[in-house]
């Protein structure tokens, strides 16, 4: 029986050959593979195309050199977020055996921001896939929540034909008041009937008649007279009680009449809302003119802040992320951070040198520094910081995800930046801010946001668009702002992240509002009078009869009270006078 061989020794040579072929292929194509993988991963992370012209791995020294890095903007189709001439990364090789990328230092040269590109580099915006796609969709939805007033004015005759009488509150209020008046009248009549004054008055009249024929010694007649007076007094008390009820009812009806006036004012306001009139309120004008443009920087900053929170979450719990794209299902990669171990990604320090105004004759060079960028801040134990400075730039950011509640703050002031001209929403005007100073600040503490964006320019220029001829409001705003070269816009955002308050103001608000008030004031007043007349015509048919009914019921009630009280008083006076006559002592 032959012994069973376990190893196939003759296959060792082909296997070694295969291994060496693999090593040779790696040596030949490692740079290309690393470049493609870097592009793929970068694109997936940022939601925008990442392109690298050349990447060289020097594993012996632990260096990676990237030349011609271009990162497209996730928000704008034909614009780059940044370009870099060269990045040299010093990589710690040992952590690579744990599939961890620890970069001790990156030196980035020739960074440029906002450069144009020829192709659309947005990926997340088009596919909506991955973390970047979800965050982009969330921030877009967040930005769409802000209700921005629109400056618009209907051309031609101002129409209020759409005023629906059923939506006026005065008409049902008048009907209700009429019904209440009728109800009060019936109630008061029942009260009068329950007084039963007839027998009291009849007995008092009879007693008075007896007293007229009685002598001073007719004690029975005198007693009858006194008892009749007492009954008259009690009857008057009852009348007084009914009087109080009637007075109270009249007060309520008067309140109802005042309510009709309030309802009329509400109907006027409702009617005014149906008119297309520009707001003449300065804060609303600021929001209408600049809020759409002011929201964009907040939206973009929030996008990057939320991406940072997704990729740099606090805590040490296992985290699942989408796996690598491949022919087979990607699945999910789960990271298992461990205390006192290295994070999966750590950039200890990056030194950045970049250019502002790269296309001008004298581009300005700036320097910045980024430290502690990591996928597991709790392991690194320190916040990520960034700062950059130069003649016209101050910028800084701090991402503190070390504790349970992440805090992200950032701010920048950039001077001398030539901002692109932008369209004023709702009106055919464009404003070119020219060289402006831009300030931006954001604090995201847990789920509370405070942010500020401001532009200040002294060389703003206003331009009319092609549709200008047909725009009344555009013409008015043009008259108000065309001579103003100062532009000072400030937008503030504060409150809970899911529903913050937005306030926008500018130095143009009051100018535009005054101009609109001066020119449109008469037109607005005429339109409002027309609207009030229309409302009055609809509600007066109901209010007039209701008011008359209330007055009639009030008059009737008060008259009945006065009449009954007068009869009682008259009889009482006559009885008292006769008793005094009979009981007066006459001296001889």
């Amino acid at each position, binding site marked *: 029986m032959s012994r*069973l*061989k*376990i*190893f*196939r020794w*003759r*296959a*060792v040579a*082909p*296997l070694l050959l295969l291994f060496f072929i693999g090593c040779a292929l790696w040596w030949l194509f490692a740079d290309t593979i690393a470049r493609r993988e870097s592009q793929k991963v970068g694109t997936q992370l940022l939601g925008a195309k990442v392109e690298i012209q050349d990447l060289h791995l020097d594993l012996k020294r632990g260096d990676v050199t990237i030349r011609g890095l271009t990162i497209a903007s996730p928000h704008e189709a034909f614009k780059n977020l940044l370009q870099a001439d060269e990045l040299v990364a010093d990589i710690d090789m040992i952590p690579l*055996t*744990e*599939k*961890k990328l620890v970069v001790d230092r990156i030196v980035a040269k020739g960074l440029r921001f906002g450069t144009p590109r020829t192709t659309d580099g947005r990926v997340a915006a088009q596919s909506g896939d991955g973390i970047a796609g979800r965050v982009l969709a969330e921030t877009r939805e967040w930005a769409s929540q802000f209700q921005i007033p629109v400056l618009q004015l209907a051309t031609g005759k101002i129409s209020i034909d759409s005023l629906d009488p059923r939506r006026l509150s005065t008409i049902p209020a008048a009907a209700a008041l009429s019904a209440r008046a009728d109800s009060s009248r019936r109630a008061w009549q029942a009260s009068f009937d329950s007084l039963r004054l007839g027998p009291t008055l009849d007995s008092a009249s009879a007693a008075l008649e007896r007293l007229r024929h009685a002598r001073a010694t007719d004690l029975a007649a005198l007693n009858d007279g006194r008892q009749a007076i007492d009954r008259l007094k009690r009857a008057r008390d009852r009348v007084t009680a009914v009087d109080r009820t009637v007075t109270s009812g009249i007060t309520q009806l008067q309140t109802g009449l005042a309510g009709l006036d309030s309802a009329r004012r509400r109907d006027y306001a409702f009617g005014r809302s149906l008119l297309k009139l520009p707001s003449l309120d300065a804060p609303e004008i600021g929001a209408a003119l600049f809020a759409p443009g002011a929201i964009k920087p907040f939206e973009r900053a929030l996008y990057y802040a939320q991406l940072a929170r997704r990729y740099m979450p606090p805590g040490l719990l*296992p985290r*699942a992320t989408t*796996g*690598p794209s*491949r022919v*087979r*299902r*990607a*699945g*999910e*990669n*789960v*990271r*298992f*951070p*461990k205390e006192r*171990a290295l994070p999966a990604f750590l950039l200890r320090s990056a030194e950045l040198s970049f250019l502002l105004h790269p296309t001008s004759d004298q581009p300005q060079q700036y320097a910045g520094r980024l430290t502690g960028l990591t996928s597991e801040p709790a392991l690194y134990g320190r916040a990520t910081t960034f700062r950059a400075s130069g003649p016209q730039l101050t910028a800084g950011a701090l991402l503190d995800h070390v504790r349970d509640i992440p805090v992200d703050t950032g701010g920048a002031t950039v001077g001398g930046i030539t901002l692109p001209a932008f369209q004023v929403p709702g009106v055919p005007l464009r404003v070119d801010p020219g060289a402006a100073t831009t300030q931006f600040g954001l604090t995201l503490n847990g789920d509370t946001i405070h942010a500020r964006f401001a532009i200040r320019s002294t060389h703003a220029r206003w331009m009319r668009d092609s549709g200008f001829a047909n725009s009344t409001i555009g013409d008015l705003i043009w008259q108000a702002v065309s001579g103003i070269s100062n532009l000072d816009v400030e937008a503030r955002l504060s409150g809970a992240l899911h529903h913050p308050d937005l306030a926008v103001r500018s130095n143009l608000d009051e100018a535009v509002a005054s101009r609109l008030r001066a020119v449109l004031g008469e037109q607005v007043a005429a339109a409002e009078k027309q609207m009030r007349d229309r409302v009055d015509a609809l509600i007066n048919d109901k209010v007039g009869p209701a008011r008359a009914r209330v007055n009639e019921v009030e008059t009737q009630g008060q008259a009945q009270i006065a009449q009954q009280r007068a009869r009682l008083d008259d009889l009482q006076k006559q009885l008292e006078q006769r008793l005094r006559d009979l009981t007066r002592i006459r001296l001889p």
Partner: protein
Amino acid sequence: MFALIKLIQSLFGALHSEGTPGQLAAGIVLGSFLGLTPLFNLHNALIFAALVLLNISFAGGMLGWALFVPIGFLLDPLFDWLGHGLLLAPSLRGLWTSLYNTPIVPLSNFNNSVVLGSLVFALLVSLPLFFATRWAVARYRVTVGERVRQSKFYRAVTASKVYNVYKMFRP
């Protein structure tokens, strides 16, 4: 077409090789790992090396690989579910954390739900697959194997150049 011819060659080559049914079954089991799990992973390099170096049927390995690739694609949702459940199981968190922070091990991509799910599945089916295949090959050889060996089709297949390459790795 070439892949189909290679598959048929592998099938015949394996079934009629001089190797024992056990060697053929072991090859198919290792090949199933290559087919069931995503190919470009560290564990598959080890599997391939074992397939080449160990005295088992290389043709069986190729056959197992070819047969189990479509099954792997079909069962990917199951692997994803299984791997996800294992990776996020609280009782196993310590094990995964320790493996994840051990040199070399993370290069196996074990922390990917499809990789782990498919690997565990392949391990679970490996023993039943081995015994079932060994029995089936033995039954084939004692029943219809000799008649197939005498057929013109078999002779045509085994006469090709690819078969000569295969013979280099036969057990």
